[in-house]
């Protein structure tokens, strides 16, 4: 093993600590990978917010068909592990289109498939957060808004949603953090995010302890920073009351 490591020109010399050697040689690569992780998370979250809002609203309107559609979506996504969803979207769907249905030339990039996968997964949880947030607003608020003549959606937009969002924000930020961590699952479809890249680094260096420690710290720093920002926002909203 020592020999193998010595064969790699990047990681042999000068009696440096192995961690520093990895950082020297693969630091840029890992940082780029972290950037890819954040890019994937942001893309996923963007569409997750849209999906969450749509399905969250579908589950609160007084219409049985809409409620059912929302419930089926949430249950279906929550009932399937994300890794299965990832394989299904990246490999399964193009196979269905190309081979079974004969619509040629459909290919998804890993970023596209990963975004869809995160958006669906996080979107289902966001829908639940938004539903719960809207339901937490006293029914009298909607009734009062309707009683002065505001149409349902206007009342929702002016009175109910602004109040619901306040109670939703902590859960939404929490969901953002979970989604950011879930990007690591998408290493299985070959997207060059942090975990996937780290695997390659380990394959090159065999220094799994050092590499994974670096990766863990990188996640830790980003996520802790995010939660701090979240705490700060929460506090500001509370004082704003």
């Amino acid at each position: 093993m020592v020999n193998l490591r010595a064969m790699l020109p990047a990681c042999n010399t000068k009696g440096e600590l192995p961690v520093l050697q990895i950082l020297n040689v693969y630091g840029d690569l890992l940082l780029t990978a972290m950037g890819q992780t954040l890019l994937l998370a942001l893309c996923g979250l963007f569409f997750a917010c849209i999906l969450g809002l749509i399905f969250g609203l579908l589950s609160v309107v007084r219409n049985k068909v809409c409620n059912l559609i929302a419930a089926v979506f949430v249950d279906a996504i929550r009932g399937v592990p994300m890794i299965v969803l990832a394989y299904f979207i990246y490999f399964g769907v193009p196979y269905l289109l190309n081979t079974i249905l004969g619509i040629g030339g459909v290919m998804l990039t890993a970023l596209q498939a990963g975004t869809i996968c995160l958006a669906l997964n996080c979107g289902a949880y966001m829908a639940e957060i938004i539903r719960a947030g809207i339901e937490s607003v006293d029914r009298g608020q909607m009734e009062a808004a309707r009683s002065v003549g505001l149409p349902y959606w206007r009342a929702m937009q002016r009175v109910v949603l602004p109040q619901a969002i306040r109670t939703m924000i902590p859960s939404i930020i929490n969901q953002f953090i979970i989604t950011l961590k879930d990007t690591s699952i998408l290493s299985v479809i070959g997207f060059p995010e942090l975990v996937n890249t780290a695997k390659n680094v380990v394959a090159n260096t065999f220094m799994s302890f050092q590499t994974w420690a670096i990766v863990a710290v990188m996640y830790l720093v980003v996520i802790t920073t995010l939660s701090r920002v979240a705490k700060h926002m929460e506090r500001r909203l509370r004082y704003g009351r």
Partner: protein
Amino acid sequence: MAVNKDCVKIHVEHLKKNFGKLEVLKDVSTDIYEGEVVVIIGPSGSGKSTFLRCLNRLEEITGGEVIVDDMRITDKRIDINKVRENVGMVFQHFNLFANMNVLRNLTLAPVDLKKADKAAAEENAMKLLARVGLADKALAYPSQLSGGQKQRVAIARALAMNPDIMLFDEPTSALDPEMVGEVLEVMKELAREGMTMVIVTHEMGFAREVADRVLFMDGGYILEEGTPEQVFGNPQNPRTQDFLNKVL
């Protein structure tokens, strides 16, 4: 101002309302005239509030006919929002918009529904707030007000749409005793000005003083109606007698 018997503001005929299998309103019919103050009394669960909430269709109506301002609100095709613009409602729990200050509470609907531009709506709102004695609270948020203040703002909010009819759903039931008076005072003032009012309340003294007509409801029916003198002084129905014995 006197009751104008030539102008029916609210016509209710064989109104029925079920919640699932529970029949809350079984058969309610009455006419409410322009400028009339109608007070509805009765034990809890008698359908008073449900009746009131049917008048602006906050509750879907199961059967019968309700005509408000010549609009048949039991007809699904009617634009209920248009009717509601003309029918103010005051709730037991105030229901002020918690995310807006008092002024915005009053101007939201007039501005959003293009009844007035922002400046005109704010001017009108300030007048209304002065009328309920709360001009100095225009920039306060609902959470900073006392119960009595909240309810007076709620009345002003309903008036901001300049309605012909006002519905009051137990407006003083959630108030501390010392705040009941200030709210009733505002309501009396409105009654004197000739507003058509339908009030569900447990304030019997108030009912006696301001009502043109008192309706006693129980079990989903109007069991007795008449002037306050008739209903409070000489009730005919044994259920009315029994109820009044308990509350007076």
